[in-house]
């Protein structure tokens, strides 16, 4: 899988439509992002943290169970991690 990074679209991409019916906007998600895939694997294998990780979007990004963000941060701190907590805010139209 392609790791998370700054948007660098490929030059050969087809022209996008204004209203893309095939796109789905997922809002109010809690994401966990790690610097290396091994860290995410380690978290998934953890007895307490694993069940809170519901879906993986890439090697380094996963979705946390809704409503479990606080619990996740607490477990991460207990496990010796120091997560950077970033308040995202819902997607806003420009």
């Amino acid at each position, binding site marked *: 899988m392609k790791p998370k990074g700054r948007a660098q679209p490929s030059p050969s991409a087809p022209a*996008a439509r204004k209203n893309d019916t095939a*796109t789905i906007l997922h809002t109010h*998600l809690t994401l966990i*992002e790690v610097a290396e895939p091994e860290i995410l694997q380690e978290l998934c294998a953890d007895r307490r943290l694993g069940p809170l990780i519901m879906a993986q979007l890439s090697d380094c990004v996963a979705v946390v169970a*809704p409503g479990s963000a606080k619990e996740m941060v607490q477990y991460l701190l207990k496990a010796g991690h*120091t997560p950077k907590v970033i308040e995202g805010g819902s997607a806003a139209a420009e």
Partner: protein
Amino acid sequence: MKHWRIPTPAELERMVPPIEVYLSNLNADKLKKLARRWTGKDANKMNKEQALTAVKKGFEDPQAVRALVERLSDFERAGLGLIKLRGGRTAYTEEIAGELLMLGLPFKGKAGAFQGYDHENAHYSALNALLEAGLLIRIDGGGQAIGRYYPSVAVFADAQVLAAITPLPPQSLDLQPLAQGRAEFVRRPGEVLLHLVAFTQALSRVGPLALSAKGLRAKPAVAKLAKTLGWKETPTEQSPTPLPNALGFYLSLFEAAGLVVMDPTGRTLMLQQAQVDELLAQPYTEQAKRWAQAYRRLHQWVEYVPPQVYLYGDHELVGPSKFNALRAALLLGFAALPEPTAWYRLEDLSDALYDRIGPYFSLGYRSHFYPPYQTPPEKVPMLRAQWEREQHAHWREREHAWIAHAIAGPLFHLGLVELGYAPGERAILPNGFRLTEAGRAATGGLFRTEAHPAPALMPAQPCVVVQPNFDVIVYLDSADPKQLGFIECIAERRQLGDATAVYRLTREATYQALESGVTADALIATLQASSRHPLPDSVVRTLTDWAARRERLSVHLNASVLEFESQAARDAALTAGQVRGITVGERFVQVESLAGGFRPGSTIAYEPALPKCLTASETGEIVIDPNARDLLINGELTGYCEPLPADAYRWRITGESIRKASVRGWTAKEILSRLARRTRHPLPPILACVIAAWSGGRAAPGPLSVPTVPILQVTDREVAKAISVSRVFKPYLLGQLGAHAFLVKPDRATELIAKLSELGFAVGTEVLLALGTPEQTA
């Protein structure tokens, strides 16, 4: 909901009615009395209108005002001076009433005489003398004297009159300083400042403090603040410097100082950070004046509740109370010490206060002397002396105990007094005290007339030493509030001494500092700037490492992700500028913003409730609606279902999948609840039973059985009833099924058929279907 609360000093100033409004409320007698002040005895001949005109004219003429002030008694001048010292025209009733008594100057009134049947009003005697003279006015504009039944939250004086007044200090107390004293308990300004800074930071961190429906501080919010602060309550009975409910004290202090204010909706208390920063940046002698004023008007907190004083719940302290009067009197008592720098016995101060205000004031109930009927006149002085002794004894039990707690508690913790023990005397509470420099500035210093230069802000200077073992020693005398705040933020306090505080740089504290918005570079640079020596390399390396570790793992709250059907579509959208964000995997973008005209095909919100996209059959077949499929559903189903290889949108709940889920710690209840919140319809009841059965354990249904048992069916209800009660048939039967059928013991079925035939019944072997209405099995 808005609640009544005491107006702030600024609000009081705005409440002052115009002089015309006040004067128009007075009757002719009062107006004439007032007019006499301005025109002399001629006022006696005036009618109401003339008196009103004379008074108005007097207030408008600066020369007449100056002449009036010159004619005032010392008590009246000193009383008005107390108002002027507050910096405005107003004063809270309870405070000024206590202070006026404490002046030690004679005043006209019912002093020492019969106070009427309500002795509770005695402590307003001096205040009412000024109201009667028209020098003070009730803030509500009323003309009557202040008493329990005619309260007024504050009084005010005329601005012109105040301008001509020079504040006078109270008469010196008749006190003998101690020959020697030793400070055993000292709280230096740096230490006081540290507590104030820690409190401010905690309050800032927890945000606005919620109020209860009654307008009191909500207990959960206070508990959260206490947890953030980490202050532990010391048993006050054993402490020589008791400060009960320290958190409540600081909250009330900040509220009284106007540093914590109620929001316009009346639901929360908010910290005024800018004002706090400005105040804490001043030299402590200047700050002390503000803290002492705030202490005088504290509410919702009390130092100590002495015996014979009863408080019925927290709400009793919400409004002005006698404690405010005694606090004001005590602070003015400090200004009346004969030698401000000397040591005094606390008991001597208490007795001196008793001499000044005891005849008028009591925290509890103060009785009055009435000689019994027909007492010989020669016996009255003896009885009076005995009554006086009793009153003094009550004072020692009540007011003296309170004064001891006030001095050893809040006044010590605010750094206004040093405490010690009088030679040869030991007790739990120190019994000797001396005013500190800040204490002198905040009390007697207020009456000094010399011009004060503008307070200089404390320049920041290196105040910490960072040791290679991560200990940070802070020299409190040279630390400014910003530095203290910074150290409180980035390190854990381990020890607090008179002159230094020891902190420890820990990963947790550093993490919290970074989370609060401090950058790693700023953290190290600020620590370096505050340090008296270069930071140890190992400390810098470790701080950098801790900061870098935080960058390795991020949790994005409330994030939005745009899903595309292919990588090409995503890249096209990014190129066209329809979406801005960070690419994730092959088909996703973590959205920062969407172009104005761009509309995604659909939107799925995951909170407050998860989207419902499943249908579940009785047999455990789960179907995902392809149009409503969300990011989490597959991961969720994986927990307790098996995918069907042929169709990506179909899953199945099986015994094996449930057993595997059980092994992983899932209970039937959890599985059912997860499934129920995702299905678009109520779960089939049998599926719930099946999942419970597969998961086993306590949730599993009881045993079921499908036995092969012969049944005796009887068409005639009367015959069936007869068989059911017959002893002849009892050995052949297991039980009854409804009104017309019986379970037969399999090994005795043949015998039963023979018996029935023998008794003349026609016995067949076909099942009889129409047998009346079904009934409960017997």
